[in-house]
């Protein structure tokens, strides 16, 4: 460490020429990237396309890249402190200063923040970047800490979730966002079984979500089945489709498997879109019945003759919120069910075999584990949970169409799993709050949502391929917990 430090500090001057050249080249690339697409915007005038120019934005982006690169070089060359100060000032200034567009503000702040983080690392470690291993270790410690904290954060979060609808700030929109986030948490936990535990990259998870949703909608539409009957049926049908689709593809290698699942997802969507007589085609299905209170009472103001409504049952005044809150608790229970299942199965031979499969499938075979069956189990179970979530989605919306089941939806769920940390249950919650919650909270930035989201996926992969909070605790211990951690930490400190 000292050797590196003295080496870094020993550099006498700064080669300004080389620095400008490097930054200039980067700026040139930025110019080439932004000039045609940002600088020249195609617009319709009458029936013809014409071009309007926005060279100011190009200029600003190129300048930002140039300055940012200089900042990076300075950090690398051991002048991290001034860079840190300047980047913080820039970030604050960009927050308040009038800038031509909102996106520019976001980019400036984000860029300055990244620079500041690098500078902080440089100041603390005398180097601007950490090696992959150091990053992994640092993030793993964070993950371990979060995992430990989950022991008490988990129950608190559940209590908070239960109490949420009765909080003073719980307006209808808050509960609605809660339902939305919980739906994605449930989907994330479901997909986590396939991606996080079994290590199979499923790009078509939305297919099972769709099967669940359409199962309920169609069963209710054609046969008048109730939600409570359809919920298990939808799960079963989704599981069955998982079984049927999974069987042929599970022997494929990782990336081929990913593409084929994407193909299946799209096939199901295209079929839903075009089989109009059965599925309603692009118009979808509307008027999907809302769930009753466990088949006992409805949430209507005036129930049909001979039936009783929820508010009458409990002798309270009618409030449309009752149904929303009921839906909220429904998805909370469903999500917790998935979580409970996953926590439990990780400690069972099936769950351990999933994780072993993720680590090394050839070794699994040599131990007599039937890869296909194990993968099929993961695929089918995850599909079932997707089906549950789907039928919940249908009953909550009252309307579904193929629009809701595009590849982007799969990508969002996958991103939740990947960002949070593959295999990490709490990571899924954190990621769902970020991916779904943040855009809901900052509606004005909604058009940048998918943009930042794609960028986020790339950045997380580059920064930490296993996901932010990825950390696994052994599922079974020979020695008491504390000493095991301690030992390992000691050995790492020694190494």
């Amino acid at each position, binding site marked *: 460490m000292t050797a590196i430090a003295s080496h870094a500090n020993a550099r006498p001057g700064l080669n300004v020429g080389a620095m400008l050249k490097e930054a200039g080249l980067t700026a040139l690339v930025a110019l080439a990237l932004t000039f045609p697409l940002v600088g020249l915007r*195609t617009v319709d005038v009458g029936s013809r396309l014409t071009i309007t120019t926005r060279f100011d934005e190009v200029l600003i982006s190129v300048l930002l890249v140039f300055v940012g690169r200089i900042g990076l070089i300075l950090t690398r060359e051991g002048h991290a402190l001034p860079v840190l100060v300047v980047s913080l000032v820039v970030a604050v200034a960009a927050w308040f200063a009038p800038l031509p567009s909102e996106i520019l503000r976001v980019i400036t702040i984000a860029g300055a923040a990244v620079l500041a983080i690098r500078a902080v690392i440089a100041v603390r470690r005398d180097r601007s970047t950490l090696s992959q291993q150091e990053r992994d270790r640092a993030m793993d410690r964070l993950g371990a800490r979060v995992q430990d904290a989950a022991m008490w954060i988990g129950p608190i979060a559940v209590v908070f979730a239960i109490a949420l609808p009765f909080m003073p700030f719980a307006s209808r929109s808050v509960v609605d966002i809660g339902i939305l986030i919980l739906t994605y948490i449930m989907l994330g936990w479901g997909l986590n079984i396939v991606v996080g535990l079994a290590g199979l990259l499923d790009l078509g998870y939305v297919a099972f979500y769709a099967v669940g949703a359409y199962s309920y909608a169609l069963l209710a539409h054609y046969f008048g089945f109730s939600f409570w009957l359809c919920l298990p049926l939808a799960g079963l049908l989704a599981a069955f489709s998982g079984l049927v689709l999974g069987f042929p593809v599970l022997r494929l290698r990782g990336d081929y498997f990913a593409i084929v699942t994407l*193909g*299946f997802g799209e096939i199901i969507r295209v079929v839903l879109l075009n089989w109009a007589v059965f599925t309603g085609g692009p118009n979808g299905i509307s008027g999907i019945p809302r769930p009753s209170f466990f088949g006992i009472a409805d949430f209507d103001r005036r129930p049909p003759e001979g039936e009783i409504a929820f508010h009458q049952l409990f002798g309270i005044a009618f409030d449309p919120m009752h149904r929303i809150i009921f839906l909220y608790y429904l998805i909370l229970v469903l999500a917790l069910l998935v979580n409970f299942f996953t926590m439990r199965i990780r400690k069972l031979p099936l769950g351990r075999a999933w994780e072993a499969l993720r680590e090394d499938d*050839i070794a699994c075979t040599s131990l007599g584990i039937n890869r296909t069956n194990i993968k099929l189990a993961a695929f089918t179970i995850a599909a079932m949970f997707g089906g549950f979530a789907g039928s919940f989605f249908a009953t909550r919306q009252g309307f579904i169409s193929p629009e809701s089941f595009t590849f982007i939806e799969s990508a969002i769920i996958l991103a939740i799993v990947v960002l949070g940390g593959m295999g990490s249950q709490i990571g899924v919650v954190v990621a769902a709050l970020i991916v779904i919650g943040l855009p809901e909270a900052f509606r004005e930035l909604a058009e940048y949502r998918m943009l930042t989201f*794609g960028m986020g996926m790339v950045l997380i992969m580059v920064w930490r391929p296993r996901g932010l909070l990825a950390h696994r605790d052994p599922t079974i211990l020979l020695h008491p917990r504390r000493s095991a951690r301690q030992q390992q930490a000691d050995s790492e400190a020694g190494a």
Partner: protein
Amino acid sequence: MEYFVQQLINGLTLGAIYGLIAIGYTMVYGIIGMINFAHGEIYMIGAFIAVISFIVLGAAGITWVPVMLMLVLIISMVFTSIYGWTIERLAYRPLRGSFRLAPLISAIGMSIFLQNYVQLVQGARVKPMPPVIQGGFVIMERADGFVVSLSYLQILIIVLTTVLMVGFTGLITRTELGRAQRACEQDKTMAGLLGVNVDRTISLTFVLGAALAAVAGVMVTMYYGVIDFFIGFLAGVKAFTAAVLGGIGSLPGAMLGGLLIGLIEAFWSAYFSIEYKDVATFAILVLVLIFRPTGLLGKPEIEKV
């Protein structure tokens, strides 16, 4: 019969375009073993740059078709290549040697980013383009007046693709770069030890793939006359299917796969159902991967133990 011939012509044209995109997939897969999920978006960017340069050139008074076309091709190839280069540098290179699914996830992120970036800076509406090259030959005419035609544009597409393919095959088999590329495919560490600049070779692979995708983008712009920010996804999946069908890693395979996919799509739409033409492609992808993952011209892979 006449109808059949017409579909054959249409299918070949479409297939040529898919083939050009498929080469990008196949080369990248060959050299670093990843599916460049963002490649469809590269093609989409190529198409956008083509539209933009057509308009700019038109406004600048350069309207003589051969010159205009030449310039558009060059501009589009150059700028799209820079996108290809940058993407590899930012999103894939740091992940080389990481766990196996990381580059694919990064590529999916990149694809989402690029789609939304183009939507944001160019608008979500479709971009119509007036036809640049019009007219063609009438090859056959049926008694009821059905005309089989081969447009100049279709000829241009097929000829240009053939020329590019020949040139490209020469590049891979005859030049230093091609040798370096094949060496990296076999063993990157060893190639590096023997003085091949591995990073540069991989970068160049992305640049070449992007340039060919840009050509496909230019052609599609002229052929269909309308593009939007979402065209990359389907074209990407179809081209990937073509690459897999031909045998991933094989250049002639990519072209052959492209042609087959183009023909299948044309005939499927003509004789079965136009709604399910994408299902046909996906079904082929699934079937090929399950029953013949090495494709038509690919080499078998042995599971290393």
